[in-house]
Each structure stands twice: as C-alpha cells, then as structure tokens.
C-alpha cells in the first residue's frame, strides 16, 4: 500500500507540541496535516499548569532550548489570533534553611552564566514580594523571566494560526500504524483510512512510545503521572509562581514511588493551582487522595492561609517522560521519514515553540538556532556494534 498523498508532513498529535510543529512547518512552506484522536489539547496539554519556566532547568542544553522558547512565546503572544493569557508573573524558588538556600544559589549562579535573569531575595524582600508566605522561610531566588499561559487556549490559538497558514486539521482520527514508503516518506493507517506524506512527526506526548512502535521504531517515553489541586477563586493572594527549592530534585528523582514538591500559583481566573506530584504508575488514572493530602500538606507549609481555602477539584495528567529528562527531538535513527517531537516531561508547554522551530529546521534542511545534538533520538539507539543489519 502506498496511501494517497495527504500532505508534505503529517503531525500526529494536536497537543501543544503538535500544534507548534504544525504552525512552524506550515510557515516554513510545508503542506501540513494534523491528526488527533481527540480534539485540540485532548491529552496532557489539557492537564498541566502552563508554566513557561527557565528557573527549573539545570544549566545545560535544556536551558538553552528554554531560553529560546521563552522568546518565541513572547512573539506568539503578540501574533496568535487568540488571547491565551500569557503573563510574565515571575518565579520564586524558596528555601527553608541556609542549606537549601546554598543549593538554590549555586544553581542560580550557573543559570545566570547562561543568560538567565535571577535575583537573590532575603527573608525581608521575600515577605514583601509574597506577603502571605510562611514567615520562617530563609529566602528565595527570583526569576523575572518565568511566565505562564493557558495551554488549552494556546493550543487552540496555534491551530487556528496553522489553519490560516494552510494546515489541515483531522480531529477524531486515530493513527494506528504505518511504514516507510519505498523512495521517500511514510504511509500511516488511521481510523479514517491510509494517509501518505513525505514526513511524519510523532508529537503524541505520553503516547508517543506507542505511536513510534506502530511506525516501526522505539523511543523510551513513559507516562509520569502528576496531580493538581484547584482552589476556589480568591482575590489576588499569590502573585508569583512559588515553588520549593527541592522541586528540581523531585524532577530527577526516578523512583516510581511518589516524588512531591510544593508548587503554588494563581491563574487569571483567581483560582490557585497546587502541584506537583510525580509517579510512574503507567496510565492509571484512579483517584489517589493520598497524593492530594501530600500536596496540601506541602502547600500549607509555604502558605499557611491556604488551610481555610477550599479545593474545588483536582485533575491529573501524564507527562511524557524520557529516561534522561531531556526531550526527544529529531529524526528517527531507524525509520526514514519519521521525526519525533516528544519526551518533554514536565516542560512541554515551555519548550514547545523551540521544539517546533528545531523540527521545522531539521525537516526543511536549514540550520537550527539551537544545537539539536543533545536531543537527538539516536542517543537511545543501541551502540553501532550491537546493531544488526537487515
């Protein structure tokens, strides 16, 4: 089967990453078709917090990508056809004692060397910046570049812009499998028939491992569950994104048992979002109030006034996690015509535009603005000697 030629590029997944890729590829002059089995932001992009952070990145390739992405979000903020509540509210990483402050300061120094704006706050400054914080905290690092947005609106805005740039949306359609075409490109089989394209971009988030398998490849993406508590709407009570200094440790803590760290922030509608938990439990979505208890206990340590504030609901989602906590962006080493844009774990919102920019450059053969090497899918391929031919 060759499949009728549907587009130059088929993007599988209409989450934030897929939507960004669709827009970037369309604007690079490609004919793009986006396929999603649900609607826009039908997966993790509707189940996260929407932060665009530089503060939580270790000094390294991910931070370079994050800084680039932060700039691109600003641009998108001024040109997408929909207000997606982009706001540079700033991040505060707080420390409980001198030891935590030393670790926070250490990271801040290394980030600053890569161009991150960061400022140290002592207890007095911290209390002025965030008056309802617990009084016994040792201080904080303040990151004015940290921003947030509403991911579902952003996805809809990106897709609307992609649509204007000529991209085609095929929603409610599942990609089941596919193969490389002889010559060039791929055919994929979907619930709406067989489609053919010069290139396929796998942007299926936590499901991208399954999608890759269907397309004859393997990438090591696993779902990492996270839960969020949402409070009743309040008058402005928390001004920044505030999180504990041990957050970065929780991200790289690979134990499948619960890793938790308090993250508190207000949304434009007045509700507070309280995270964040990390669990490897497959795609199990069973409610787990033990996790909610842990989130609440940690949040109260930061903001004691929250004790009387009511939670209205909770939601959870599955982060697309890669084993080395770096995203997987680039050409598949084994299947020609297949590209991956996935594995962003808890940073896909922030990293989506720069990821799309990389993909568009790689697919069209131009020079990318950020070194794509560290994100290449081939880093997981078996060593050359172990590869069997045929």
């Amino acid at each position: 089967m060759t499949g009728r030629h549907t587009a130059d590029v088929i993007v599988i997944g209409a989450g934030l990453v897929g939507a960004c890729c669709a827009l970037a590829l369309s604007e690079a002059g490609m004919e793009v078709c986006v396929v999603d089995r649900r609607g826009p932001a039908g997966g993790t992009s509707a189940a996260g917090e929407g932060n665009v952070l530089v503060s939580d990145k270790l000094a390294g390739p991910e931070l370079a990508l994050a800084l680039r992405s932060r700039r691109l979000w600003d641009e998108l903020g001024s040109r997408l056809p929909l207000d997606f509540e982009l706001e540079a509210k700033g991040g505060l990483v707080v420390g409980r004692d001198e030891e935590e402050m030393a670790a926070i300061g250490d990271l801040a120094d290394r980030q600053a060397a890569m161009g991150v704006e960061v400022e140290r706050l002592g207890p007095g400054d911290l209390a002025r910046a965030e008056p309802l914080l617990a009084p016994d905290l040792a201080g904080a690092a303040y990151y004015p570049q940290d921003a947030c947005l509403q991911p579902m609106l952003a996805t809809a805005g990106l897709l609307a812009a992609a649509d204007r740039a000529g991209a085609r949306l095929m929603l409610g359609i599942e990609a089941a499998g596919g193969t490389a075409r002889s010559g060039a490109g791929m055919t994929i089989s979907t619930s709406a028939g067989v489609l053919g394209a010069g290139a396929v971009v796998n942007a299926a988030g936590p499901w991208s491992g399954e999608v890759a398998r269907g397309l004859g490849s393997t990438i090591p993406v696993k779902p990492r569950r996270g839960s969020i508590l949402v409070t009743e709407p309040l008058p402005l009570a928390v001004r920044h994104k505030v999180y504990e200094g041990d957050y970065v440790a929780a991200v790289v803590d690979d134990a499948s048992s619960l890793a938790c760290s308090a993250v508190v922030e207000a949304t434009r509608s007045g509700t507070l979002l309280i995270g964040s938990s990390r669990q490897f439990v497959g795609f199990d979505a069973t409610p787990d109030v033990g996790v909610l208890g842990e989130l609440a206990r940690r949040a109260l340590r930061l903001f004691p006034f929250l004790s009387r504030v009511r939670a209205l609901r909770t939601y959870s989602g599955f982060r697309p996690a890669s084993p080395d906590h770096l995203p997987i962006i680039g050409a598949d080493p084994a299947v020609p015509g297949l590209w991956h844009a996935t594995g962003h774990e808890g940073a896909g919102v922030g990293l989506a535009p720069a990821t799309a920019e990389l993909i568009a450059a790689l697919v069209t053969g131009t020079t990318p603005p950020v070194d794509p090497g560290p994100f290449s899918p081939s880093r997981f391929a078996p060593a050359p000697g172990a590869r069997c031919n045929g």
Partner: protein
Amino acid sequence: MAEGQALRFTFSDRVLVGRAGDTVASALIANGIRSWRRTRRGGRPRGIYCGIGTCFDCLVDIGEEVAVRACLRPLQEGDRVAPSGSVGPAGP
C-alpha cells in the same frame, strides 16, 4: 406559616429581622432582598438559584466566614452578612 423566634441580623449595615428556622437566604428574601452579590466578571446580581446547596450562586460572607452558601446556613442572632467577595480568605 411557620412561626419562629425573631432573630436580628445585618446585611451591609442594614439591620434586618428574620426568625428561627430561616436560612440566611430565606431571611434576606423575606426582607425583600433578592440579590446579595455580584459576579466577578460581569458584575451581574445574584441571589438564590437552586435553593439546595448545589449551585453556589447564593454566596455571602458572614463575619469571618467567607463564601458561605446562604441557602444552607441557618440564620443566627447577630449575623453580619455581606456580599461575598468583600473579604478574601486571606483577610480583608
């Protein structure tokens, strides 16, 4: 109709009288007050809607208690009732 002991309360500085057995909502309605807060976005007036605690349209602040459902809260002598949103959980 039901007779209960008279209870005095205030709504935004007006002194009003309800009776034992009233909810805060029914006491306001009996005093001719049908809306007691405005919505956050559109500033639209709101009073009771479902009457059984489901819709949260009837929110009031009562003294230190914030965003209380008026249709579920038994009226008490001396209640200081105010439109919801006049005090935040974080303090005035």
